[in-house]
């Protein structure tokens, strides 16, 4: 057996560790893998072109909402989202993101995976709302904490999506598992695969919700620490 194609994986790992531009790393890995598998150059280009054509649906989801979101942002969508959430009493970053997590995971479990997403929900609505609440809980937010809250908004979208969609029986992953096992001579019921995903889906929700509560706690202690640090100064004045 020719083990050399594994060199492509090594290129990816080394490239990411050394933080080279990811696009260059990935295209190099594709070239190295193909050459190590002894594909002639034209056939390799063909393989890359064919694969690229087959996966064209990927950028579609990212691209299509942009014009709409851009227009709305131009007219103050972020400000409106922040104004809206400021009017909700008792809202905190942790509570907002927990509710979003529940909604995202729940709707994905019903097969509605396109109800969220980074370009259409997180950037224009969820992240600005979380940022506004963090600002309210912790005035004088540093850029670092601000970025942490925004990253958490994106992370919450991913976690809700991943661990919700897989318990929807018609989802591609279930079909993939069922078909693969059948080809290997093992019969399973797709419904059972979906059902056995539920314990993990619940665990994912609980773990992440607890972490979101701790984010609130972190913002509160950070705020208290800053207030304490500022106090002696005001006394001196």
């Amino acid at each position: 057996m020719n083990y050399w194609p594994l060199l492509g994986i090594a290129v990816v790992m080394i490239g990411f560790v050394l933080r080279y531009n990811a696009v260059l790393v990935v295209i190099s890995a594709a070239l190295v893998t193909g050459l190590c598998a002894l594909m002639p150059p034209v056939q390799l280009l063909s393989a890359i072109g064919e694969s690229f054509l087959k996966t064209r649906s990927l950028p579609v989801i990212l691209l299509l909402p942009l014009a709409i979101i851009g227009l709305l942002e131009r007219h103050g969508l972020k400000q409106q989202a922040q104004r809206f959430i400021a009017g909700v009493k008792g809202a905190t970053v942790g509570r907002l993101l927990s509710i979003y997590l529940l909604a995202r995971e729940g709707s994905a479990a019903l097969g509605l995976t396109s109800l969220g997403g980074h370009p259409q929900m997180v950037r224009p609505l969820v992240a600005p709302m979380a940022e506004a609440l963090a600002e309210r809980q912790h005035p004088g937010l540093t850029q670092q904490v601000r970025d942490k809250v925004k990253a958490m908004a994106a992370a919450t979208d991913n976690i809700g999506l991943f661990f919700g969609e897989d318990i929807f029986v018609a989802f591609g992953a279930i079909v993939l598992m069922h078909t693969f096992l059948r080809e290997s001579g093992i019969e399973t019921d797709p419904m059972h695969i979906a059902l056995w995903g539920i314990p993990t889906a619940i665990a994912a929700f609980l773990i992440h919700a607890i972490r979101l509560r701790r984010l609130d706690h972190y913002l509160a202690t950070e705020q208290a620490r800053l207030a304490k640090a500022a106090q002696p100064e005001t006394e001196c004045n």
Partner: protein
Amino acid sequence: MLTLTHLYWLVGAIMALVAVLTLLDAQHPRRFRSGLFWLSYGAIFIVGDYLPTAVVGALVLGMALLAGLGGLAAGPYQALPDQLQRVSLERLGKKLFVPALAIPGFTLLLVLIMGQFPALHWFDPKNLTLLSLGVACVLAFAIACYLTRESPRQGGLEAKRLLEAIGWAFLLPHLLATLGLVFNQAGVGQIIAALSHDYLQLDSRLAAVAAYALAMAGFTVIMGNAFAAFPVITAGLGIPLLIQQHDANPAVMAAIGMFCGYCGTLLTPMAANFNIVPVALLGLKDQHAVIKAQAPTALILLAVNIVLLDQLAFL
């Protein structure tokens, strides 16, 4: 009947529009390189099916070099003056949410309606969700233009602004998916399966469970996609070790094994559309900010998954 091809034409047309807007912009710092990039991408969407695949591959190589070597940059953008934005915000208020919520709203509605009446043959049933999303975006775009009183051309400028903010990260998910298929053609999966089959002999049940779970997560970290890892790791470890040797329930093994892969997805820059694109979209300083936010959840959940697999698969 509406098919993916029509959706690809729409996407290609938007990319071509972005290319033209870039090439017409004399002040753009990377006018020709950015323009060429979007022109190539648009061409692949519109006429890609008619080109020899080697030509498409050459275009992809060129685009990767343009994007990877700093050929994509943000051009000048005329934001709405503060005062006008305030007037517009007062006038529109909560109505601004309407087009944003119309995207998921219409998608949902179309999926439900077209799913109920497949006999209409309006949408290709194989790609119902994606096509519904496409039509929903067109409708939402019309509503957005109407409400904000902007021209479709301004919409194009906004798409260009956001694409420029995302930069090279826009190409990355697509390129990674391509790499996954090239790995397949080169037989990387079979090699890994053969290696793990030859060198991993695990007699203890818990060790076998942990090896399968960690291999699913680990190989997903490398491939960036749990779907790519599942066949390889399940053939190499899951079926011989867990099912044949320890008599695991295949449905439980598959369900929880795939979730172990998802824990890996949360940890890897290779899953660019989930972990790197949002960093660009939200303008975060740290390239790995989203991965860092996810890592504790992913690692705790991976441990929980090992326990669940050990407890539930052998009932």
